[in-house]
């Protein structure tokens, strides 16, 4: 804290950051709460001031169109910087698994699925080319998450529960959708953390006051989770990307049914996953009609053998 006072601008930035955190505390509990889908969607409309009169229909249209005003706020490089900082904090909670073969396997599946996604444009109208990084976190928890800028993480605990590469592709596709559709950027904005994001980009996190604010922002966003509507959107997109990648389409729905069967909020390993996502059964039920229509004629590759060979290396 001493360094905070050595530079007046740093102290001012910290004050702004604290204001942002307080605002976040007030607004975040509405996510997925009694406000329901209408209020959740208002966040997608561009920052969620709560005064949006756009109806449900417009909100859904925006989700379908993948409109994310948040992308207009950051260049590709700025998103990368944000992602690196976010990843640093997330990996501070649990480190990466030290196994080259498993890490490279997940990177290869992930990047192949990511190649199937429509890339967003940055604030200058230029298509963003993400340098995708996939990391396996050495944790027994069952979860996966992403950051802005193309970082995606999955836990050892979840890899153990999956049966084939098609299921992994579905999970990674869901996370890739959060990245390319700006869901974390929207959460930053909605949580009132925009100034902190600006701070990261300006200071490159060399300043202690900025770092503390970033750490708090990341803890807040990942503990609270994203908009519920963004989770449903990521499910739909994840299904699409995995199918485009040539996998059996029901990978992600199978994983959601696994969460439904195994997940219990009293099980510490499922606690964060279940508290930050809509009910697995509801998520799966929204995908079922698509399996019977849009993806009815999709291919049937699961590469179970090479998945199981990889999984055997997990202790």
């Amino acid at each position, binding site marked *: 804290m001493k360094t905070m006072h050595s530079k007046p601008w740093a102290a001012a930035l910290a004050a702004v950051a604290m204001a942002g955190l307080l605002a976040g505390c007030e607004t975040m509990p509405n996510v997925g709460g009694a406000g329901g889908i209408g209020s959740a969607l208002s966040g997608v409309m561009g920052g969620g001031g709560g005064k949006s009169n756009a109806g449900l229909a417009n909100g859904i249209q925006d989700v379908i169109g993948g409109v994310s005003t948040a992308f207009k706020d950051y260049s590709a490089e700025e998103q990368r910087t944000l992602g690196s900082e976010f990843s640093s904090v997330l990996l501070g909670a649990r480190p990466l698994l*030290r196994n080259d073969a498993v890490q490279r396997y997940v990177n290869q599946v992930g990047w192949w699925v990511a190649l199937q996604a429509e890339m967003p444009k940055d604030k200058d109208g230029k298509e963003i080319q993400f340098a995708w990084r996939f990391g396996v976190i050495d944790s027994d928890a069952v979860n996966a998450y992403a950051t802005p800028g193309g970082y995606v993480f999955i836990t050892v605990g979840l890899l153990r529960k999956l049966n084939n590469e098609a299921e992994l592709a579905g999970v990674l596709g869901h996370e890739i959708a959060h990245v390319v559709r700006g869901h974390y950027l929207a959460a930053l904005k909605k949580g009132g953390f925009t100034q902190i994001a600006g701070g990261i980009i300006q200071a490159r996190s060399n300043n202690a006051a900025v770092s503390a604010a970033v750490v708090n922002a*990341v803890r807040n966003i990942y503990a609270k989770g994203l908009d519920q509507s963004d989770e449903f959107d990521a499910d739909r997109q994840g299904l699409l990307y995995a199918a485009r*990648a040539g996998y059996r389409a029901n990978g992600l729905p199978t994983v959601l049914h696994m969460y439904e069967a195994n997940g219990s909020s009293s099980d510490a*390993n499922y606690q964060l996953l279940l508290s930050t996502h809509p009910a697995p059964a509801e998520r799966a039920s929204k995908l079922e009609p698509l399996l019977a229509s849009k993806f009815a004629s999709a291919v049937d590759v699961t590469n179970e053998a090479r998945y199981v060979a990889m999984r055997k290396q997990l202790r």
Partner: protein
Amino acid sequence: MRSRASAGTAALRGLLAAALIALAGSAYAQSLEVSTSTPLRASPALNAKSLATLPVGTHAEQLEARGGWVRVKVGTDEGWVRGTHMRAAGAAKKAAPAASTANPVTGLTGLFSASSTRPTATTGTRGLTPEQLANAQPAPAEVHQLERYAVTAAQARQFAHSGKLTAQQIPAYTGADQ
């Protein structure tokens, strides 16, 4: 009395054997070994009496699981251990040496361990709970480590090809897809 007790024990063993046979086909192995040195406790609580300290590799038979705790039989002893400190027996034989559970940057192993004063344990050392997230400190060395595992788009395409995967032309969703 003695014969009744041993008859009871035999019946218990029979039940246990039946249970183990019934579970043998499931994905969850009942034969466990210790993955992180851990106390064997008298009851499923972090402040329960420690009966013994089990070193890494100790073999144990799972008898029961409850809320992140597993009741195990180790030799002639029975007690409770954290499920996150156990793995399926033999699972580690071909695995790389266990990575340190300490964060290489912060060295904060203890921070992520369950508090010994709380009876309801929600935090295992290998878990990733809201509490652990709330205590997370930046680990830039881990971000550097992540770069070492990176692949290129070309490598991913080759990987897909060897897995007989071909990209499918499936249009983006429209308002008609419900």
